[in-house]
Structure formats: structure tokens, C-alpha cells
């Protein structure tokens, strides 16, 4: 029993979607059946028109660029927090050593060091400001 036009129409749809190839049977049927030939031409025409339509949505480059910048900022923030934890851990170790030394008879030396930093650092402040201003390109007299 031969196939009906409905069967051939289903096969033609598969051919348009490139899921099946033309064979002798379909070609012979199309030669003799005007309805199926007309149907096949309409399918092909519709496919060509759809291919020619620009269906791509417009790309908003500014939004994409902002998203990338935000992603970089989040990545930097995570990295900053990670380094902060490492710094805090090292600081705790350092300060524990200092307190241990202070309690074991080195408190005088530590306090002398503290007093000297209180006295010396304010004097080097103007030089630090001048050096930084020069480095950042400000007019320095």
C-alpha cells in the first residue's frame, strides 16, 4: 500500500529541517502530485524568508561592559577580604610575640620604641606628603 499525501507532507517537513534526504520515492511523488509540490514550495519559501529576517536582539554593549566591570569589582573585593584575613592573622602572631616579650621583662624597650615613633613620625610627615605629591604629578615647589 502506497503512502498517502499526509505521509509525504510529514517527510517533506523533515527534509526542510534537514533531518531527512530526498529519495527516489519522494521525487517521483512530487512529479505527479501538484498539491504536495505546492506544499513543498511553500515550505521552502517560508524557510528562506525566515532566514533573511534579522531575528537577533540588539546587543547593549554598554550594559555588558558595566556587567564586566561589576564582576571585576566583586572579584577584587573578595581578594581584598582574603588578604585582610591573612594580614590579621599575621598581626595577631606579631602582637602576641610583642605582648609576650613585654610581660617577660622587655616592656621598657618596647615603650622606648613607642615613644621614639611618637616623636619621629610627625617630623617625617611633610617629606611623605611632598614625595607622594611629586609621584602623583602635582605641582610641588
Amino acid at each position, binding site marked *: 500500500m502506497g503512502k498517502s499525501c499526509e505521509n509525504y507532507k510529514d517527510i517533506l517537513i523533515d527534509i526542510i529541517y534537514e533531518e531527512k534526504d530526498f529519495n527516489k520515492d519522494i521525487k517521483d511523488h512530487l512529479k505527479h502530485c501538484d498539491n504536495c509540490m505546492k506544499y513543498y514550495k511553500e515550505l521552502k519559501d517560508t524557510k528562506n524568508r525566515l532566514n533573511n529576517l534579522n531575528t537577533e536582539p540588539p546587543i547593549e554593549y554598554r550594559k555588558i561592559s558595566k556587567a564586566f566591570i561589576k564582576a571585576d569589582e566583586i572579584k577584587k573585593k573578595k581578594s581584598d577580604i582574603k*588578604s585582610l584575613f591573612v*594580614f*590579621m592573622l599575621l*598581626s595577631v602572631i606579631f*602582637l602576641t610575640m610583642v605582648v609576650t616579650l613585654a610581660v617577660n621583662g622587655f616592656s621598657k624597650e618596647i615603650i622606648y620604641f613607642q615613644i621614639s615613633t611618637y616623636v619621629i*613620625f610627625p617630623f617625617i*610627615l611633610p617629606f611623605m606628603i611632598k614625595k*607622594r605629591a611629586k609621584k*602623583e*604629578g602635582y605641582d610641588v615647589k
Partner: protein
Amino acid sequence: MLSEIKEVPIFMWIIIATLLLTQASWIFYDASKRGEKKWLWGSFGLLNVPSNLIIYLIVTRLVMKTKKCEYCNKNIRKESYFCPYCGKEVKK
């Protein structure tokens, strides 16, 4: 007076150490946000409190970091989105 230094109780040292840790951590985090040398400033903050914090604030707030405008090559503030000289949009 110098002989009385030996009498400083341990809890005073712990308070000072806590203050130093808090100060140094804040300076480290602030320096990292601003693109400063965070490890250098953080270690600086561990040395004494509060004068080193004041020094850090004066140096970083008084002299703002700059970058070059890619169009007119003038020095502008690092956080700027637009160049105040040529008006063009600059990369952050």
C-alpha cells in the same frame, strides 16, 4: 618613673595590642580599597596608636591618587569618570 614601667599589668598590654590590631586592620582594608600599598600601610598601623592612623589619613586624603587622561594626558583624580580638562569619558 622608668622603674614603674615594669609594673604595667598584662591586661593593659592586651588592650594596646587590640587597639593596634583594629587600627592596622582598618588601615589595611582602607588602603586596599584605595589602591594604596596595603601591606606597607598595614604594617605602619601596627607600630603605634593613634598617631600612625592620623599620619595615614593625612597622607592619603590630602594627596589624592591620580591617573593620566588617555586623551589630553593631564593628571586627573583616579576615581574620575570624566576628564575635567577635555571633558572626555575616561576608563575607571
